């Protein structure tokens, strides 16, 4: 129906997920599976790159919330990067920036991760 794509990358032991298209109630389970898969492999340093994300619904936001606790408990983090202003606004209104690290670029997030490790 709507096109949504997930791409996996890895950079110096940090898992990067690229989101593309519409992340709504229909596609959120795909995203959830993606994060679950990474966590199952005991990887807890995750960057979600939203460069090509065109829409996110509350169900999409819920996915971040579902895993952040577990990830942080394992001394990892989910950092969100490269948001368009529209997407950022959705996160911002809900107060996400107060709870999550949202960064302009992937490089910033990678740097932050390597510094903390």
């Amino acid at each position, binding site marked *: 129906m709507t096109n949504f794509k997930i791409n996996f990358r890895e950079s110096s032991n940090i898992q990067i997920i690229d989101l593309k298209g519409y992340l709504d109630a229909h596609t959120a389970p795909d995203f959830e599976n993606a994060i679950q898969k990474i966590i199952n492999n005991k990887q807890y340093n995750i960057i979600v790159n939203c460069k090509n994300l065109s829409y996110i619904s509350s169900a999409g936001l819920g996915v971040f919330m579902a895993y952040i606790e577990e990830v942080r408990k394992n001394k990892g983090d989910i950092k969100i990067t490269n948001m368009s202003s529209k997407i950022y606004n959705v996160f911002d*209104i809900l*107060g996400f920036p107060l709870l999550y690290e949202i960064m302009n670029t992937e490089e910033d997030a990678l740097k932050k991760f390597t510094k903390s490790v």
Partner: protein
Amino acid sequence: MNIKLLQRFGKIFYLITGFTLFMIGLILDVIGKNVGPVFAQIDLIKIGAFVAFYLFIQSYWKRESIPLKRLTAILILGTVVLGISLLLAVAIGTEFEFKGSSLIPNNYSTIFISNALAVIIGVAAIIFILLLRDILVYKPRRYTKRNFLILVIGLLAATFSAINLNPYESRLVTTILFGIFVLLILINSFRMPWIVFLKKREKVLTIVFTFSTLVIFTALSIIFQDNSSAGKSILYFSHSLKYFVDGTFLFVLLYSLIAFLSTIFHLPTSDTFDRKMSEVASLHNLSKLVTQVLDFNELVDSVTGMTLQVCEAKSSWLEIIQPAEKLKNLKPEQSGIYVAAQKNISVPDIDHINLSSSFTLRSSVINDRKPVMIDDFKNDTRTQHLNNLESKFGSILAVPLIARNELVGILYATKETEYGFDREDLEVISAFADQAAVAVDNSRLIEKSFERERLMREMNLAQEMQKKLRPQTIPNIEHIELEVFSSPAFEVGGDYYDFMMIDDKRLAIVIGDVSGKGVSAAFYMAEMKGIFQSLCKIYPSPKDFLVNANQAISSSIDKRSFISLIYAVLNIETGVVTSARAGHCPFILAKESDVSFVRPNGIGLGMGNSELFTKYIQESQTQLNSGDAVIFYTDGITEAHTKDGDEFGYSRLLEAIKNNRDNSAIDIRDAIISSVNKYMQNQPPHDDTTLIILKWLRN
């Protein structure tokens, strides 16, 4: 009752008539010994006795359609007759004197023995003919019965033509008729369609029985030779009967000979035939199964069970591939493919086969959608690494189950021998797999429609519940205009709003959006309403209210869900609005000087821990002047979008309000809605939309 009685009398009548005629014949024979033949038509009387006996037997005859049983009866009766004949004719013996062209018995015992022997052999011959008839008309064709009738007529014609013929004379007409009869036997005897359908064991049995019959009847023919003691007895009794008995023996001999030979010829193919029969039977069963798709577990169990039958496999299992839409709802640790049923193989073995190397039968079938056959399990490069299996494998076959172009599963069959599956097995299993795929697919469709119905009911329930949760009336307050627009996009929406007078002076307004839709949203909404109604009087400060609401909802809400909320309190005497925001869209304050968003900090309910929530939440306060409006809304307004995905957004909303600030609340409301609708080009709304307009009119 009367008819039954009549029938019983009829039967008894036949028996009495037969017996009487036979006795008359016997008496005439006794008289004849002393004074010579007294009554020329003595043969007719004796034949009449047999006709009556025939009618008697016929009236009790039960048609039996199993040829093998008939064959057994012929063998048993033949053996009994042989025993009696040996006893009477050979052990006791008869003595005849040859006088002119007739046989004259030497003593009375000879007459009695002859008569006894004749009646036994004659009745037995009738029974043999009837038994043969049942075998011959098994699976009849158009001329089967007619041909048999002609055969019997031929035999009877030969018999009757020999009436009053002296023992050792012959008549041309009788010889010709008997010749025709033999020809007719040959025509009839090649009809044995029943042999083909016998199982191998039954064929072996048939061979043994027909051979025994051959032996018994050869012995009977020898005993009843014209010149033997028994032969003479019958010839003396009636030459006609001799023809009848000889004809019957010949018939039985020829038929058993041909049956014996053709069963032997059919024996080598009987394995194939047995298999074909079991294939047909199981395919038939499966087509029955297609209608029994209500129980999925039963269905898959039968599919594996029948696979064993169809190709005589040692073990079999069926893997089901989840449909794509179901896959989405699966937890990630669950796999999209699972073993639905197995026979004679353990699950660890199946897992071992599927997981132990990069090439698996499973992935090969999934990728190519073609059957995979491994003839030599131990030495094939694809499977030779698979050792340590509990079960012994020689060969293995995996076929895809495809229904409506969708791979729904994989069926496996194994044998202990190498090269156990041949091309026919593959074809049959493939055909079988097609049937099974249809059954599996149907079963899913049925399940889906049940599921849909259940969801519909649930939805209706949630919708009803939600209707009751919305405020039934809007508070009517002097110098305040309050207007609401609310429309759920789907059956059950996530938008929530409510009003409450905290006391005489303060009106509490709440607007929110529960993440997710459907039943869970309705549930959280109900909870939110409960929290609102119980907390708003205890915590009139919006900040306090939200902190406590967060605490209350966090303990029960799913970690994926949250509620965005604005809680505002209007002092209806002073016009002061105090508000706090928990992650909800900022509300709009439309003052004469400026139209702007009010966005105090705050995160959504249920998102973070209580400490963080309390830390970040702010409260905002505004003084309303006459003509000022406050607009609350949900993201259904700002995220309303065109076909291309362009959103209505915040600036268009602000613009619409700016242009209508001085209008009444109802006009502002309608202006915003029409502006949104115009922008969406009358597309149906994608999300719930709620809009609350509050207009302050006090100077």
